């Protein structure tokens, strides 16, 4: 239901992924977007090899952190991240490119996987794999359904519904075989017989390529989808492909589906078949004014300023630089922050287009209600948020909001709907959490 179709602007589509040069220093964040930060297991002066564990997961919803380069640890200190706060990180001065023993660095395809389900899950957990769809949720948690719940199908999210971003597209074209093997491994872990790969039909080359490969993998079906934002949202994708709706407040496993991003699947292949932890990813550098829109393999911890340099530098008329897509990406306050596992793109927006327009009154046109993919009433939620009406917001299911931004995009009065709804979500979320603690 709902959704919008912003201009796709996929300037970097079909471009071969360029391997970015190794930087002189990397700063690897120990904290993640979701969950508890990891604990450093190295200290100043330690020599590390690429792929070596430098941060241990702290708790169930946390992930291991590995060195993405070889070199010497110069310090374990705080580093500014995209939110403007300084958080613990490991600083490594790069020396050479030596990988830890046991990691297979060659690019030969390995099809067979003889490991048991438990061994595969352990490798995924040890490799620190987090979802590369944007939320960076630890993969081993998603692949371990709670007792009593079983998945009956795996859904691969290759939709890439955000405008401008093309990293998943490029990955599918270049690493199609590896992705297929990865899907097979994930199906084994979940014990499912069917997998669907959802791809929007603005990527016909990827649909063809994977379609041909899927013939050798029984149970894997390519599902071409109409282009619509936010079809890449988990719940939206499940509805689009297998026509099941996840009930309000619940997670996909309740309807028997597990969704994984195609980039995460590739990382699972590397972790299980090559013993390689998650230390690099594809980043799209793009924008109407970008000198060389393209996709780059970047090691985690590389400063974003360096990635921008590699791709031709920041254009002069840039008003905002957004991390990710234009809908859900967060504007950067500086490029002196490191690439995290979840960084998907650097988007340059021209000054004229970047500034917000003046806010006008709500005219009750209900365009926002029509586009909301979760069936909410954004104009009402913003109204209630302005008046601090928290119980009413909870009753109107504000916690179901996936923060896609379709409402703010469509509003003819330029009302900042999502900002106020997010404010409501934070406050109501806090109230709900306090309720649970008191009950105990």
């Amino acid at each position, binding site marked *: 239901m709902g959704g919008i179709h912003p201009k796709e602007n996929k300037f970097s589509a079909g471009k071969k992924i360029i391997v970015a040069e190794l930087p002189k220093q990397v700063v690897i964040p120990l904290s993640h977007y979701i969950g508890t930060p990891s604990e450093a297991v190295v200290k100043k002066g330690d020599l590390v090899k690429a792929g070596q564990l430098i941060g241990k997961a702290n708790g169930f919803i946390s992930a291991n952190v590995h060195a993405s380069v070889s070199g010497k640890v110069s310090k374990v200190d705080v580093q500014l991240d995209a*939110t403007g*706060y300084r958080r613990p990180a490991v600083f490594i001065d790069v020396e050479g490119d030596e990988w830890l023993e046991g990691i297979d660095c060659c690019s030969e395809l390995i099809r067979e996987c003889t490991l048991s389900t438990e061994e595969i899950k352990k490798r995924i957990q040890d490799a620190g794999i987090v979802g590369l769809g944007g939320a960076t949720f630890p993969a081993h948690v998603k692949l371990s359904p709670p007792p009593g719940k079983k998945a009956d199908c795996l859904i691969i999210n290759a939709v890439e519904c955000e405008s401008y971003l093309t990293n998943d597209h490029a990955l599918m074209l270049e690493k199609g075989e590896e992705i297929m093997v990865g899907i097979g491994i994930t199906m084994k872990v979940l014990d499912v017989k069917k997998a669907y790969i959802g791809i929007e039909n603005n990527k016909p080359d990827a649909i063809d390529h994977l379609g041909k490969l899927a013939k050798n993998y029984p149970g894997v079906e390519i599902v071409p989808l109409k282009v619509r934002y936010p079809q890449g949202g988990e719940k939206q994708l499940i509805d689009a492909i297998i026509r099941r709706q996840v009930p309000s407040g619940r997670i996909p496993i309740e309807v028997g589906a597990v969704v994984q991003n195609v980039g995460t699947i590739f990382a699972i292949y590397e972790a299980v078949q090559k013993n390689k932890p998650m230390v690099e990813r594809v980043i799209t550098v793009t924008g109407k004014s970008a000198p060389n829109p393209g996709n780059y393999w970047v090691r985690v911890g590389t400063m974003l300023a360096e990635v921008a340099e590699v791709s031709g530098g920041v254009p002069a008329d840039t008003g905002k630089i957004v991390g990710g897509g234009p809908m859900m990406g967060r504007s950067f306050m500086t490029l002196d922050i490191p690439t995290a596992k979840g960084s998907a793109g650097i988007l340059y927006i021209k000054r004229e287009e970047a500034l917000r327009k003046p806010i006008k009154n709500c005219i009750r046109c209900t365009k926002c209600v029509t586009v909301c993919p979760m069936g909410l009433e954004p104009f009402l939620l913003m109204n209630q948020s302005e008046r601090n009406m928290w119980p009413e917001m909870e009753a109107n299911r504000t916690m179901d909001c996936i923060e896609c931004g379709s409402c703010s995009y469509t509003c003819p009065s330029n009302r900042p709907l999502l*900002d106020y709804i997010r*404010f409501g979500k*934070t406050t109501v979320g806090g109230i709900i959490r306090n309720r649970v603690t008191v009950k105990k």
Partner: protein
Amino acid sequence: MPRLYSFFCPFLINIKMNIIVIALITLGVIAAVSAVILFFVAKKFHVFEDPRIDEVEEALPAANCGGCGFPGCRGFANACVSADSLEKLNCPVGGNETMKKVADILGKVAVETAPTVAVVRCGGTCDHRPRTSDYDGVKHCFIAHNLYSGESGCSYGCLGLGDCEVSCEFDAIHINPVSKLPEVDEEKCTSCGACVKACPKLLIELRKKGPKSRRIYVSCRNEERGPIAKKNCEVSCIACGKCEKVCPHEAITISNNLAFIHDDKCKLCRKCVEVCPTNAIVELNFPPRKVKMEEPLTPKVELVS
């Protein structure tokens, strides 16, 4: 309808029945019957309220600000009447005067509390704390706070978007457009606590007003290490410890790289203000210090033969 009336009032048969008269009589009857029913219902379902609640409510300032912790002045009056003692009950707007009146009405003892006032614990003006980014979103502190740390390098500092100003019902706090920090009008501040709750960075504190409205406090909430704090704001607390050492009344404690002056122990001697290397400690409403006049230097005269 006319038939009904003609049954009861035969003399009306001959007069042409005017619709207006019918309407008037009908409504009049309904009104009279309803009035009688309501009278009896009101008597039967009357809620007994202690008449003292009304008296106490009269004595309160009628600001309905919630500063006492109860829903409005009536809620507070209710609490006062039903409580055993007035110990934990205090109206910050009315102060000790009002509590004395309430105590007299109820025959209880009013507990004197020291008056408090709101204090903004951030000194990061545009001069002291350079801005490193330009926030273009909704001008609302909580929304900006939800998005990122703020326009400067100090993630604890005031965002300057005025949630505190909007929350104040007494017009007592305003954002200074030059310094972009909130300023409290002591005469108007009733210490109700609305601004304390409104600030997402927890910068505002209710502190003792002090004798002659004098108070001393650390105007910083930065918990990062000294060098990092100082780099982002000239007047930040760097937790050097000088204030803690010099305080003769043990009123200052340092934890999480931040000094805090406890107002129950502070005797306003101002020694900490003198030693603070970054001027993070602020003294309010004190007379200017006497500057020691230096002896004029006698110039050395060279003897010329």
